[in-house]
């Protein structure tokens, strides 16, 4: 299988791991700009009737 599919954490030394962690934290915290984009994306959901959407999902059985 292609090597480039592997996750970034294949590096083993602590510095690299710490850097990965740091990058992840920064990306997750600096989410303000993406939040606008995400809110744009979900606008269609926010326009629908939440009550109808939620209460319409009732199911029995399974497992």
């Amino acid at each position, binding site marked *: 299988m292609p090597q480039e599919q*592997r996750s970034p954490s294949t590096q083993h030394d602590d510095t690299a791991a710490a850097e990965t*962690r740091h990058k992840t934290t920064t990306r*997750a*915290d600096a989410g303000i700009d993406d*939040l606008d984009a995400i809110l744009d994306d979900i606008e269609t959901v926010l326009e629908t009737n*939440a009550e109808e959407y939620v209460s319409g*999902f009732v199911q029995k059985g*399974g*497992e």
Partner: protein
Amino acid sequence: MMPQLHDSRNRGRGDAASSAHKDGFERIFGIETEYGLSVTGTARATDAGQVAMMMFQPIVQRARSTNTYLENGSRLYLDIGSHPEYATAEARTPGAALLADAAGEHTMRDLALDTQRRLRDTVDLHATIHLFKNNADSAGHSFGCHENYLVRRGVQLKAIETQLLPFLITRQILTGAGRYTDGHWTVTQRAAFVDETVSSATTRSRPMINTRDEPHADPESFRRLHVIIGDSNRSQWATVMKLAMTHLVLCTMEWGARSGSPTGLEHLALADPVDANLAVDADGADAWLVLADGTMMTALAMQRRMLDAVATFADGFHDEIAASFDGDPFMTLDDVLDEWRTGLDALAAHEWTALADRVDWACKRHVMAGIEARGAVDPMRMRQLDLDYHDIANGVLYGSLVRHHRMRALCTNEQIEDAVTTPPPDTRAVLRGAFVRHALGAPVTWACDWTQLKITTPVKDEIMLLDPFDADGGAPFARIIREVDASRAADSAV
């Protein structure tokens, strides 16, 4: 109808091949996912059961049944209560199982969107189908995502209850899918619905682990562990990690059983697993758990102990364990251990937002906190957005999070499309998939299940595939394929 596993005609080959794997660390993985279904946008209420039947019309046309096997070796069926369900074919690695599960999502989405087009043509222009890869509806009914692991017989049921169960309950701090309910976020989808620990039934009660013993393999060497306690994950990282972490714990337990040596997984039995499960659901890593010996430990501390035990064991058998990940498209042994440790470190530092790009509960909670910071969100809207994240047909939140790098995706579209038609490599799924591919459209009456391939017209033949590690099938497999192909040739000659 399940084939007889003790049928003496078929024992030779399967047993010989199985016993070769008896002492190794190879594993067979499978994931069964039930999907929830609803329809919005129609002027009159639409019955989800009827829509589920509509979804399966193309399947019924092809297979004369709502239960069929696909050319990638997986099983697609309509479960009781109109749950579309997808059971992945046998996979040798966590990553291969992830791809098979993602192929299931892809197939389900296609079926749902095709049905939506027909609904819009015939019933209502605005009909919108929601297909939820989650585990609870709005009225408190629950449905499952079951994991299957082929486990060596040496592991006693007692160890499953006292060692594996505490692991499965606490792994949810990394693999829980979270749910918005009663005005707050939980860590799991399922904990509120699981009321028993280990049982042989699934429909009467809801156990965490099911022990009905259908190994679909040599029953003297293996049992099939059926894990019911887990959540359906949208996060591909969580899907692959839950399988990989569980695999490593099972390897450690198998080695302990084989060698009689202590593994470090002992003395972690819980006083009350149902209570502990609810505590993890509510408080995550910080949940206090009461052990059977009366001591207390947090869920995080329990996971640390387990990771330490697994890492120590993996250190001693590094090459053998690493080999069990050979061919995994996404993870090596060291990746899994690193990701596990990084996850626990982040939780220990109370930096759970650092995991928001891979842990489902953290992802949803983090983005919703951001939205709420802009202004109050009605609880009903919150529940809707929670459901939308799990809607694989028309949901927009999850896709948006992936596009904006708020959620990691491991699989490429090409890999998923390939997995729709290609079985996971190096398992008997390769044989089942090839059989289905040859039989579809041929003038034969055929059937198959996990361990059997069968034709009844124009000639009768059936073969048993008792070794899930065998992707070759030998002479009997070559014969049945020849018979199917011959029927096609005879038909075109007429």
